[in-house]
């Protein structure tokens, strides 16, 4: 069996080994190296790059904690926006469904820079959003969205929400409509049927969506680079700057390792939380 299966899989697996696994390990190794004057990397086994970040309260507050907060906020907003949309799309069919899916997927396929351009036109001082808000008397003075945290969050939601819709849709479409019908037949109200049947069964999709979008938001560098300012130093952006502008590859590597580790810890925390939530619901039913 292995002799039949391995040859066709080999090229792809070798490519992943050579160009994903190996470089990732190399990042870990580089994170323990030293940088000498002139941006030369010297092989060493030092924790300096880690302590430089983790021992600096400015970095901890304005980069690490800031990225976690922004990622959590943007993920939460994405989920709230995406859930009703996924429920609605799940019950459409034919052309309407195709159009909705195409619109949901458009931001995923159209490049980030292209989309950011549209948002710049909307966001800038005398731009559409401010004109609209002032005309509607929501506020009187133009508000800053560009080069500001508000713009960053809006853009992260814009990119993240479609992923949540798609992964929720996966879960919702697996739910048998007979379950809902059965619940209704034995006298559950529509609302009860939703909370007791549909909502718990969408947990896996919700969790999958949150995992994807949180990781995406937490490591984002292009959005804060294009829309943010010096107050939106998300960790992905710092990695980008240290690697490409300051040529400090050991420090950038250490930051990447920290980024992946923190991301994994937060996702594990969420897994425990979601596990509890689902178990609690089962308890209640019993």
């Amino acid at each position, binding site marked *: 069996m292995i002799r*039949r*299966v391995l040859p*066709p*899989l080999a*090229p*792809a*697996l070798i*490519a*992943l080994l050579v*160009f*994903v696994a*190996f*470089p*990732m390990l190399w*990042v870990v190794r*580089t994170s323990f190296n030293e940088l000498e004057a002139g941006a030369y*990397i010297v092989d060493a086994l030092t924790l300096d790059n880690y302590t430089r970040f983790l021992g600096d309260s400015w970095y901890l507050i304005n980069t690490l904690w800031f990225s976690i907060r922004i990622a959590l906020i943007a993920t939460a907003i994405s989920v709230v*926006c995406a859930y*009703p*949309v996924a*429920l609605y799309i*799940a*019950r*459409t069919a034919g052309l309407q469904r*195709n159009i909705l899916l*195409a619109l*949901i*997927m458009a931001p995923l*396929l159209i*490049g*980030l*820079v*292209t*989309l*950011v*351009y*549209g*948002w*710049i*036109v*909307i966001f800038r001082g005398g731009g559409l959003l401010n004109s609209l808000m002032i005309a509607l008397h929501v506020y009187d003075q133009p508000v800053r969205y560009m080069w500001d945290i508000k713009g960053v969050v809006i853009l992260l939601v814009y990119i993240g929400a479609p992923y949540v819709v*798609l*992964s929720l*849709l*996966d879960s*919702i479409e697996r*739910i048998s409509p007979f379950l*809902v019908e059965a619940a209704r037949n034995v006298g559950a109200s529509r609302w009860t*049927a939703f909370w007791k049947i*549909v909502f718990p069964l969408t947990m896996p999709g919700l969790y999958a969506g949150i995992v994807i979008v949180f*990781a995406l938001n*937490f*490591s*984002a*560098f*292009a959005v804060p680079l294009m829309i943010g300012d010096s107050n939106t130093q998300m960790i992905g952006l710092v*990695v*980008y700057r240290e*690697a490409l502008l300051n040529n400090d*590859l050991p420090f950038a590597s250490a930051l990447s390792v920290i980024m992946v580790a923190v991301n994994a810890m937060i996702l594990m925390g969420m897994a425990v939380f979601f596990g509890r939530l689902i178990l609690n619901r089962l308890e209640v039913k019993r």
Partner: protein
Amino acid sequence: MIRFDFGTAALRLITLLMMTFLVFPIAVTLVVAVNPREFILPPNGFTLDWFRAAWSSKTFLRGMGVSLVLGIAAAFLANVLALPAAMALVRNNFPGKAALNIILMSPLLIPTTIFSLALYIYFVRIGYGSGLLPLLVGHTIHIMPYALRILTASLHNLDPSYEEAARIVGAGRIRTLFSITLPVIRTGLVSSFALCFILSWNDFPISVFLAPPGWTPLPVELFSYIKFQYDAVAAALAGSLILLSALAIVIIDRLAGLRRVLRS
């Protein structure tokens, strides 16, 4: 289709708002791109002057050339890597298949920032000069999972008896592949190629890390441009990219079905 009979009106309203939110920046870009009065909305006419300016800019044309070559090469390589893997996965059941599938999909699970940085460091450390290889590798690896997903789905629909019949009448493996398998899954191949191409063509994060000097793909070129000026020429260029992406979306939807292609 699923019938949950609650809150239809509210859900419809929220969906409408959400779709407006998703489409709004795209629509704004297209309107600015054909509006004769730069940025002054509502538009007072229709012009293709901005498009003409965008399409005659040397920088943008060069960027387009780079993106075109890169997109075609990366899409081709991704499919060449993914097709045999997809065939092995669809035709055989073996222990560890699920794990193998996750490994093959792993480029999607790694944050792009980390993946690009890792490749960047890797090529710097092995002393590779300023060639196109890192960029090509980055794009190919990043889009390969998408190719694998579409090709796996279309191979599932292929009745293996066609291939068996070809083999029985004496066609070799290669002959069977080229005269039976590939023609039968050609819609899958075309949509896989279209998806891979458009993902590469529109990519920014990987290119910004890995593009060598003098080989700047179009999105990075557009980014450097709008950093300093976001005029209607930029809108026209962004508009061209949107129209191309829309074309790709339609092709993929017609041939493979959007839903199957972009699962989360």
